[in-house]
């Protein structure tokens, strides 16, 4: 561990990305994510990397996709309006299998909304924001230190699975400052850029899936002369109109993530041993929820908490099992109710699932969550 520092969530996220090998940032200024761009502008050239401020949000993701294809680990950062604008090229990254990390420091919407009050209302957009079918990995940290760790995970997953990965920060965690001790470089595990498994003479095809269902398209400029397109393509990388190739492509894109779902589902359990009620929360809201759960425990209430880091893919088995362990599940989130519907689906009637939405531009207070815990406890006791 290094010396303790006072750091902001956005700063820790940017520093984690650089520690994971990110050497290219492109983006457009938008509150509350701008500190990430500012950090990159100062620090990327120090390590031989490149920062560029683009003309708009779409260019911000286009430029990082180009850099990634040319061999650089790449990241862009934005907030709600910019996240909406970036969706088409997030889909491009999914089908062309280009490693990229998109940070969305969530703020209140829709549209310009209530700038720049906190929200967690892009949960479903992170999963379903683009047109077409593809899986998504989205991670949401709840502390400044974890913003560093999540950035490393996101970069590693993007490279390993050659897929876009979204970091769902919220304004609370992004702008909060905490004392952190960061790991030293040698303590950090980095997934390297994948390289071709064969030479051209050996019959290399850039989009042949390996055993993990992920292909190894060569970086531009390395002599392989590959073709990359957003059209459905076969193993050669060239467009194919075949229904069977189309079906196989969509299936493989999903399956390469589905088969590692358990491995990449990260969460914490607190006070769950004898819990009859569980609070499920993530990001900034999880911090308030923790305080509420701790207070309820002190008062003798059998309540526990699941803190979710991996928002997508959804933690199906975690929630399915949780519903068998407790009588009631409370889902506080800074939106009109989004994640709760997935919890309800997984619970399948095994436990009572209650939504606690908040959408007035303010963060939860521990009392609000505490009161909802009491109400749910009374309800399931009947």
């Amino acid at each position, binding site marked *: 561990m290094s010396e303790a520092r006072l750091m902001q969530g956005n700063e820790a996220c940017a520093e984690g990305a650089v520690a994971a090998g990110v050497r290219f940032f492109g983006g457009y200024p938008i509150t509350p994510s701008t500190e990430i761009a500012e950090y990159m502008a100062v620090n990327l050239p120090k390590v*031989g990397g490149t920062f560029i401020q683009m003309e708009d949000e779409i*260019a911000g993701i286009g430029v990082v996709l180009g*850099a990634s294809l040319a061999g650089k680990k790449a990241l862009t950062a934005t907030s709600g309006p910019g996240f909406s604008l970036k969706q088409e090229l997030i889909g*491009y990254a999914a089908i062309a299998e280009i490693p990229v990390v998109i940070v969305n420091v969530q703020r209140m919407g829709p549209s310009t909304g209530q700038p720049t009050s906190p929200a967690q209302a892009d949960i479903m957009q992170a999963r379903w924001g683009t047109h077409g079918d593809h899986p998504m990995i989205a991670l949401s940290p709840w502390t400044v230190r974890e913003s560093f760790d999540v950035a490393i995970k996101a970069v590693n997953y993007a490279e390993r699975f050659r897929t876009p990965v979204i970091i769902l920060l919220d304004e609370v965690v992004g702008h909060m400052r905490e004392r952190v001790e960061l790991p030293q470089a040698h303590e950090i595990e980095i997934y390297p850029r994948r390289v071709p498994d064969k030479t051209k003479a050996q019959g290399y095809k850039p989009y042949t899936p390996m055993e993990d269902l992920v292909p190894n398209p060569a970086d531009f400029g390395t002599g392989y002369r590959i073709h990359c*397109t*957003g059209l459905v393509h076969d193993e050669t990388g060239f467009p194919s109109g075949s229904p069977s190739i189309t079906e196989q492509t969509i299936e493989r894109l999903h399956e390469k993530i589905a088969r590692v779902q358990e491995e990449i589902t990260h969460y914490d359990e607190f006070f769950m041993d004898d819990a009859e009620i569980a609070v499920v929360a993530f990001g900034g809201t999880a911090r308030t929820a923790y305080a509420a759960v701790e207070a309820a425990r002190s008062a003798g209430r059998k309540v526990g908490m699941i803190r979710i880091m991996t928002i997508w893919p959804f933690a199906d088995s975690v929630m399915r099992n949780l519903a068998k362990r407790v009588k009631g599940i409370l889902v506080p989130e800074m939106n009109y109710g989004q994640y709760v519907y997935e919890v309800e689906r997984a619970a399948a009637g095994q436990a009572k699932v209650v939504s606690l939405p908040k959408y007035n531009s303010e963060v939860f207070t521990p009392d609000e969550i505490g009161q909802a815990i009491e109400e749910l406890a009374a309800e399931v006791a009947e």
Partner: protein
Amino acid sequence: MKDYESLFRTNRLPHIWCPGCGHGIAMKALAKAIAKLDLDQDKTVIVSGIGCSSRASGYMDFDTLHTAHGRALPFATGIKLANPELNVIVITGDGDCMAIGGNHFIHAARRNIDLTVLLFNNNIYGMTGGQASPLTPVDKKATTAPYGTFDRPFNPCEVAKTAGATYIARGTAFHAAPLVDLIAQGIQNKGFSFVETLVQCPTSYGRRNKMGSAAAMLKDMSETVIPLAAYNKLSPEERNGKLPGGVLHTDIFPEYAAEYAKIITRAGGDKA
């Protein structure tokens, strides 16, 4: 001089373009320019957007990238900055470059990043069946302008000049031989180079506007585009309906990727 045919992925041919289309002529001129300059085939990247012209990238034997509609320039910018030793050439169309990609176009020119942008201008959205583009002249018919266009088209070379491009040229599919040199000079310019090439679209543009066969459209081009020196001698009235061709503008300005390399050195990152 290298055989330009070896620069094509012949197994991807024949191309998808309609009979009489001018895109093949423009693509061949690019291949000949690359052959003439003897660019390293493994260090040259061709980037395109979406549309008829943008299908050209798939036929050429380099690292090639067929991006989303309008977005070729941001991708190309990322490639060039991530690996400045690569030659990055962009193929785009009038809708791709001047409508949906217009913002990227002016900003890439402003940065003077070392990209060579070839606009295959057929004055129409061809892939989608003949809708008006920002380069469709006034009083022409399109499926979305059934009574004739009345909004002013851009002059893309003038836009490029105002935005800061350091090499600007205009060629045509008729003047195929000089087009090779116009493109080659653009590739050699260390900065943002823009070559507008007028190409005929007999199927989705010419037919609707009674412009005759592909050959007739090419003949029109031969009369419309005249050398810059000759154009400059014309009176304003005589210039009506004419366009200057050849190299229209050059300038000297620091190139973006080279300037960023200096930033890296200043920050100490050249030793990282």
